């Protein structure tokens, strides 16, 4: 029953204390260390130097942290959800860096100097620390307070602490109990409980809280006691305690307490009859010291024993009646004493859990207790003996006084009617030996293994060959087929607390009947075997199914939830199971009687899954905080645990990554790895089972995201779309503008050409030209010919250039010179053109310079006395300047101002440098870009 927990990680560590945290991990304090345990491996917690030379003397979980008190008064803490890195990186440095470590609790007031004997918290959020030598400390509102002698403490040496349902702190001392509190207004309150309050012993060595919130005390000499929270007096005590000083205790439901002693090992105290049972004399833990006990959430008892060994025990199952062996039939009577029928006789306990004495020498194979407390013992060949509660035979029933056969396989009944299943058939008689003997002939002479009268008054018979029979309202009915399965032989029939009938067959497995429907259980449903030797249902409704090599516990409230417990070979006999008045099941085994306790306290009955670590790209991440990862951090490894200290080796896992895996994967491994996950939303789910069936099992899950790369993000797509649209719009807009400009330019040019032509064929110009011509024809016919040539050149050039956007400066100057020749002939000395272009080359709008010269002629007085000098000069900055001396006509020539404006405008449209117009008192000047 007690399994030593060992691991190479422990080294030579000597354990001092043990506890389980809220997430299920076992924490073990040692002489020189602190460990976290999952049932398979111990993980050493790094300790600061302050703690090194000291032993862990107290452990407590509070505020998401494990608080460890040490023998030198130091207190350390470590978060329970800390970074317990999985050993998978292979990087020893990183593992060391991230290894979980206990850090010193640093407070201004300083920590105690004496051993911390206990730590506990109250509901108001204060943390209480008991010391051995310095009294009681409390950490409240970020201040440390002390309860010392002057505050009313009975002693400064405290052994233990407990918090009751009213928030009072119970402190165990050598001089009774101190109930400590800090009132609302900050006053320290201490109430003393001593022998005047009925304490059996004033030296209180340990305290414990039971599931109902009662405080239990363990004393130095007088055993244990339960304290009533209202009257503050003990309501349960253990008089005649014979096992010395108690060092620790823990309470299971309202049924039993487990007590650790300083010299007698572990003692089980039955809370119903105050019986204290030590371990068997030859047990290695019988005469040893117990340092610490802890009841875990699976109902296992952890103990730290004398030399610092850690044990775990499934105390729910235990061989508690080793005195008798080869039990054929078993009965627990209303006084909770066991009756055991064996081949060599019938044995009875004088008190519960006490030793057995033989009360009958017959080969007893069946037992039944009547309503009046008489026990009927059916024998092999010698009829039935009816005994009183002291084991004295009251009367005998045999073939001579009406029994049809002397071998009685089973006895059942209710009220005044007793049914006897004999090798010669089934009969009913009055319970007090009176009444009619009634033989159930319809059942024939075939064997009937079991008779059960249920609470509804129906009588059920398990036959060999005729299946299940039931007698209801005087009608006998045979059930030989259930949902297509043929039932021939029924061995065992029991009624569960909820009224369901359970029966086992020779080879078809187990059935249940809830008065309307049958349910069938086979190895498919997780049964260990279909060779069932016996049945019993405990007070919690768990069906105990006995086999040759052990027994199953079937939980009918869960689907396919069966737990197998191996036992010594030889098996449990058909009648050797019984349920006692408090719901425990007793089973007769070849090596004694085993008890399966039905604790009235809920314990977990599944391994508990938990995700312990998540690594991304082989690096552990804080998955409690972070659940979003970039697209390239998509290699994820999950570590998980399935804490199940009952049997850590059998735990199997089923996991699935929602969003990736189509199906569940079943594995015994503690990790799952997913390289190269595409972006998306995932949920990792893991379930644990101890029997390989994953219906209705607990689950742990964690959801996370792998983000899309930025080029797949909505904002990026939107941005690109926007940029595209902008670019398109900009292109179209540009093109539109350019086209508009071009159209404008074209229009301007057409107009300019028109205007130029109009001005050149201006009758005035022609008239003047012809006048000049007339004058020179007579005087100088040669010059006249030249004149006409220039005139025609001029007109031809106009025609030639007007279609072009640009002409070279040279071409323009030829045009200007033709024009000026005509003007010089006309005005003679009144007009002068001076050209100084140097070697300037470039392009220019056609007729632009000619236009400027023409304007000068048009707007200025021209005479021999006031000659008009037009200069065409080239400038350094890429301009051609046309300037004339300013001598405005008094009467201005009618003008549209179109010429100059059009020139300026056309240069604007092509986007060249602007045309500059300047006027001083002496000059009028226009600069045209080349």
């Amino acid at each position, binding site marked *: 029953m007690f399994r030593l927990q060992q691991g190479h990680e422990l080294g030579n560590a000597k354990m001092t204390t043990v506890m389980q945290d809220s997430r299920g991990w076992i924490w073990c304090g040692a002489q020189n260390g602190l460990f976290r345990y999952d049932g398979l491996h111990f993980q050493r917690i790094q300790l600061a130097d302050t703690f090194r030379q000291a032993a862990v003397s107290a452990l407590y979980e509070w505020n998401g942290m494990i608080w460890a008190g040490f023998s030198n008064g130091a207190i350390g803490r470590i978060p329970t959800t800390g970074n317990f890195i999985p050993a998978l990186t292979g990087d020893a440095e990183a593992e060391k860096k991230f290894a979980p470590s206990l850090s010193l609790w640093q407070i*201004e*007031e*300083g920590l105690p*100097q004496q051993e911390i004997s206990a730590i506990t918290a109250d509901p108001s959020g204060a943390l209480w620390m008991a010391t051995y030598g*310095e009294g009681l400390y409390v950490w409240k509102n970020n*201040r*440390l*307070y*002390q309860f*010392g002698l*002057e505050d009313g403490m009975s002693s400064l040496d405290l052994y233990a602490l407990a918090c009751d349902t009213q928030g009072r702190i119970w402190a165990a001392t050598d001089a009774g109990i101190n109930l400590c509190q800090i009132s609302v207004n900050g006053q*320290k309150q201490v109430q003393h409980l001593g022998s005047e309050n009925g304490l059996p012993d004033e030296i209180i060595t340990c305290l414990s809280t039971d599931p109902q919130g009662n405080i239990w005390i363990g004393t130095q000499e007088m055993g244990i006691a339960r304290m009533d929270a209202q009257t503050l007096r003990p309501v349960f005590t253990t008089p005649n305690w014979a096992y010395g000083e108690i060092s620790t205790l823990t309470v299971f439901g309202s049924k039993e307490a487990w007590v650790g002693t300083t010299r007698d090992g572990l003692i089980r105290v039955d809370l119903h009859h105050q019986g204290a049972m030590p371990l068997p004399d030859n047990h290695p833990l019988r005469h040893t010291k117990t340092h610490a006990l802890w009841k875990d959430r699976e109902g296992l008892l952890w103990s730290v024993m004398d030399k610092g060994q850690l044990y775990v025990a499934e105390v729910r199952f235990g061989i508690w009646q080793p005195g008798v062996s080869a039990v054929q039939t078993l009965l627990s009577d209303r006084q909770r004493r066991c009756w055991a029928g064996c081949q060599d006789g019938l044995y009875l306990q004088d008190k519960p859990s006490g030793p057995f004495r033989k009360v009958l020498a017959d080969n007893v194979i069946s037992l039944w207790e009547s309503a009046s407390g008489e026990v009927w013992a059916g024998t092999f060949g010698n009829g039935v003996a009816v005994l009183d509660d002291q084991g004295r035979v009251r009367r005998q029933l045999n073939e001579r006084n009406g029994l049809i056969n002397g071998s009685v396989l089973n006895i059942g009944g209710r009220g005044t009617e007793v049914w006897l299943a004999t090798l010669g058939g089934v009969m009913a008689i009055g319970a007090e030996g009176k009444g009619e003997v009634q033989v159930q002939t319809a059942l024939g002479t075939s064997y009937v293994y079991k008779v059960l009268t249920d609470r509804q008054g129906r009588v059920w018979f398990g036959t060999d060959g005729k299946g299940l029979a039931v007698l209801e309202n005087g009608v006998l009915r045979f059930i030989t087929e259930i949902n297509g399965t043929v039932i021939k032989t029924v061995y065992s029939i029991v009624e569960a607390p909820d009224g369901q009938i359970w029966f086992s067959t020779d080879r078809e497995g187990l059935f249940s009947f809830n008065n309307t429907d049958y349910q069938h259980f086979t190895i498919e449903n997780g049964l260990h075997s279909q060779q069932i030797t016996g049945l019993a249902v405990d007070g919690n409704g768990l069906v105990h199914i006995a086999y040759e090599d052990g027994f199953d516990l079937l939980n009918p409230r869960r689907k396919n939830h069966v737990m197998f417990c191996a036992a010594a070979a030889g098996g449990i006999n058909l009648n050797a199971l019984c349920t006692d008045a408090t719901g425990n099941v007793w089973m007769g085994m070849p090596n004694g009687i085993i008890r399966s306790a039905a604790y009235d306290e809920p314990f977990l009955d599944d391994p508990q899954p938990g995700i312990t670590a998540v690594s991304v790209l082989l690096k552990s991440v804080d998955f409690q905080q972070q659940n979003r990862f970039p697209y390239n951090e998509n290699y994820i490894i999950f570590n998980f645990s399935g804490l199940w200290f009952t049997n850590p080796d059998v735990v199997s896992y089923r996991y699935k990554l929602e969003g990736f895996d189509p199906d569940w994967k079943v594995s015994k491994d503690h990790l799952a790895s997913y390289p190269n996950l595409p972006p998306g939303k995932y949920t990792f789910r893991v379930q644990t089972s101890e029997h390989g069936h994953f219906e209705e099992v607990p689950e742990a899950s964690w959801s996370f995201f792998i983000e899309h790369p930025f080029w797949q993000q909505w904002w990026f797509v939107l941005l690109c779309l926007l940029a595209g649209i902008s670019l398109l719009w900009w292109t179209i807009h540009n093109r539109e503008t350019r086209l508009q400009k071009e159209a404008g330019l074209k229009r301007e040019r057409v107009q300019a050409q028109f205007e130029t032509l109009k001005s050149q064929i201006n009758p005035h110009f022609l008239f003047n030209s012809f006048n000049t011509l007339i004058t020179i024809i007579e005087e100088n016919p040669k010059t006249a010919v030249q004149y006409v040539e220039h005139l025609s050149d001029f007109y031809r050039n106009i025609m030639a250039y007007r279609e072009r956007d640009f002409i070279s400066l040279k071409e323009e100057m030829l045009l200007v010179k033709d024009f000026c020749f005509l003007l010089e002939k006309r005005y003679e000395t009144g007009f002068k053109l001076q050209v100084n272009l140097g070697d300037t080359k470039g392009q220019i709008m056609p007729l632009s310079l000619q236009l400027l010269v023409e304007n000068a002629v048009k707007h200025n007085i021209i005479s021999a006395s006031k000659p008009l000098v037009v200069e065409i000069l080239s400038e350094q900055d890429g301009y051609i300047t046309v300037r004339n001396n300013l001598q405005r006509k008094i009467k201005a020539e009618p003008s549209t101002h179109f010429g100059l404006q059009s020139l300026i405008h056309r240069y604007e449209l092509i986007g060249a440098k602007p045309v500059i117009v300047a006027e001083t008192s002496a000059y009028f000047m226009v600069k045209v870009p080349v």
Partner: protein
Amino acid sequence: MVLFFQIIAFLAPLFSPADGPYRCNNGKVYFHSKASLESIEASSNNLRGAIDPANRSFAWSVETASFTGFNSPLQLEHFNENYMENSKYPRINFTGKVIENLDFSANGKHSVRAKGKLNIHGVEQERIIRSDVEITGNKIRVKAQFTVFLADHDIHIPQIVHQKIAEEITVNIDAVLQN
């Protein structure tokens, strides 16, 4: 103040001259308030104290009016009149007992914790104050640093001054006692 003298008076006849109480009249108290906008420091050299080695009890007392070193005379006035109300509560007292079983005849440095009642502004709070004790012959030098929450002692400072006066004041003690 009355309590302080009662204790001194009570303790006095109990001591034989050899291991009588250790006393001090000129211990130094220094406090420091570090708020976001202003740092205030003040100190007093008038700390009086007594330690009785027989039962490890002690009594300390300082007049609030003896503190000097504020940033301005106005601050000193505020300290005395508005916050400490030294006309009503002229003294700060700390009386109690050393938790550790300290041997006063053993020369050397010891770290002990003093548990007692700290009375500031007429409001008594139980405190455990960690102190460094250095014993040399008939002299004991006591050094300690601890924090005082103004709210614990019913000293209310207007909201607007919170940036100038910390709600948590750090106090340092340095005193040499002699018997």
